[in-house]
């Protein structure tokens, strides 16, 4: 028998038992409860199902290459040599560029939209517009990236190469698409995540903290920098980690502007490849089992990486909101 549980009754003083032992419709009740249990377990189980399926199909490649796959530098389906390093490298570098750019912008937006620097009728539309970016399909942002952002970044890339070319970071001749372009596009895409969650975090900070700081003579920005940001730091870090998870897994926009070349170049102006990008480009054409296996292995690495990052983010954000409720 299904144990009868109390419904969401945090506001009720005593648990509410809706079971009717003598009802004629008892079978309906039982079926309904069973169905809800089944659906809930299946929904949660999808996560484990994904992990199992991807692992299962990656096994030929895991058996063939083992852990050496992680630092293999070559990727050739004709010679059946597969290594993940160029893709892991591209994924991490583009995500790092994206975070470096998006964090200051995202925090600025969060502060401007949660503080009273601007009147309410300006703040609300700004917050709405920034969140609108998140609703744009990534393939459309990629299309814009190819035809607008890459040509726009070209003069900057050329300037970086000419003046700072002696630094390996800018050591290669720019030709448009590349790690830098992909990173900038990713920054635009993850900005709403950082801005929206940080804004909620800042708005949830008890007003007493702000009043206390202001009454001690601190100015608005001294209050923000020394009181509000430290008080909200866990939530803001949660937002940044969540944005990182999104950047790691983002596929279409990156695929369209990164240049798709299997290489590990220290130069940000050079083209590269990411794990999602090679999955998007090669899965439809992969025929050999070992090729499919290697792609599955890459998918498994990406799944594991984003899983760790997202678990950290969700735990941080949950912890912060629970603490806010307790307070």
């Amino acid at each position, binding site marked *: 028998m299904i144990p009868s549980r109390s419904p969401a009754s945090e506001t009720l003083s005593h648990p509410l038992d809706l079971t009717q032992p003598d009802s004629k419709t008892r079978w309906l009740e039982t079926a309904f409860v069973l169905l809800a249990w089944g659906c809930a377990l299946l929904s949660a189980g999808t996560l484990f199902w994904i992990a199992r399926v991807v692992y299962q199909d990656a096994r030929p490649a895991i058996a063939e290459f083992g852990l050496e796959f992680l630092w293999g530098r070559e990727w050739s389906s004709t010679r059946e040599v597969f290594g993940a390093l160029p893709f892991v490298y591209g994924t991490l570098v583009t995500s790092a560029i994206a975070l470096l750019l998006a964090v200051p912008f995202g925090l600025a937006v969060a502060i401007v939209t949660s503080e009273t620097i601007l009147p309410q009728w300006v703040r609300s539309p700004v917050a709405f517009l920034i969140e609108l*970016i998140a609703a744009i399909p990534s393939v459309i942002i990629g299309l*814009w990236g190819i035809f607008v952002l890459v040509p726009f970044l070209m003069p900057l890339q050329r300037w970086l190469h000419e003046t700072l070319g002696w630094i390996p970071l800018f050591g290669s001749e720019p030709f448009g698409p590349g790690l830098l372009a992909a990173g900038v596009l990713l920054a635009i895409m993850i900005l709403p995540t950082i801005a929206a969650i940080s804004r909620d975090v800042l708005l949830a900070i008890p007003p007493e903290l702000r009043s206390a700081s202001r009454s001690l003579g601190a100015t608005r920005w001294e209050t923000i920098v020394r009181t509000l940001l430290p008080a909200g730091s866990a939530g803001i870090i949660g937002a940044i980690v969540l944005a990182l998870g999104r950047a790691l897994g983002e596929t279409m926009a990156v695929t369209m502007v990164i240049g798709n070349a299997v290489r590990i170049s220290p130069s940000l102006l050079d083209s590269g490849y990411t794990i999602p990008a090679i999955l998007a480009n090669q*899965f439809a054409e992969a025929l050999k089992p070992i090729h499919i296996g290697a792609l599955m292995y890459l998918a498994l690495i990406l799944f594991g990486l984003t899983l760790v990052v997202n678990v950290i983010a969700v735990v941080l954000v949950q912890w912060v909101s629970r603490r806010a409720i307790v307070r």
Partner: protein
Amino acid sequence: MELSDRELPDLDLQQPLSLPRRLFEYGTTAIALGLTVVALLPLFAIFWQIVSQGLQHLSLEVLVALPAPVGMEDQPNGFANAILGTMMMVGVGASVSVPFGVMTGIFLSEFAGGTAIANGIRFAVKILSSVPSIVVGVFAYATIVLATKQFSALAGGFALGVIMLPIVTLTTEEALKLVPDTYRLASAGLGEGRFSTTFRAVIPNALPAIVTGVLLAVSRAAGETAPLIFTALSSQNWPQGLLSPTPSLSVLIFNYADSPYREQNALAWTAAFVLLAIVLLVNTISRQVTRKHLK
């Protein structure tokens, strides 16, 4: 009140801030406003580009014709098949995710309250919502494409369903939690069981918010590309049912964006305009519904 105003020395309590503090104040304000303005620029640039480029070739023909073979100038050229394919696959996704998502939401809100099982399931669903969409595509490829040996709308729709499931679940739970407990108590007091309490007292009151969640999931799924490229693939023809390769707006944009042919690039912009219009329309409708409901 012995002291009159005249006897007091000129007392100024409004001591001005020291110069460094004032500079810090103005400087940070200027930086924050500047960064915010720059952060808004890409959005306007994207909208401007899509509207100006997309409207150039937008016509009825584009919405009702099939893609013309490359190089055929005088043939009608359009992407009606992709619009239909997107609708088909979002429909498949919704028919998979809505029943499961709503039931899971009911479970989380009505049956399992704050229990450990509910927290575990909610956590797993939250993590599921942040799994990269390309990994969901790989999953659909492994479970359906490899099993049926066929790229199909079914596989694409299944992938979209997995992406929609957590959105529907979490919004349904939130929607049900907003229904006051007095409704449940009243229903129980009239002798109703769980089934009729849930479906006749709770759900009708939460329906607008649940619909919002479904619309939000639909708008997200309609724009997804990564889970479709190697599950539904694409095609130049009308969709041939659920078990054959099926075109979609998003994959069409991806394929045409990289194309060396100008007319295909132009069509990509037009398709982007249509897709963005659909996505933002559904998205803003759902936001309006919530706002009204919450009032």
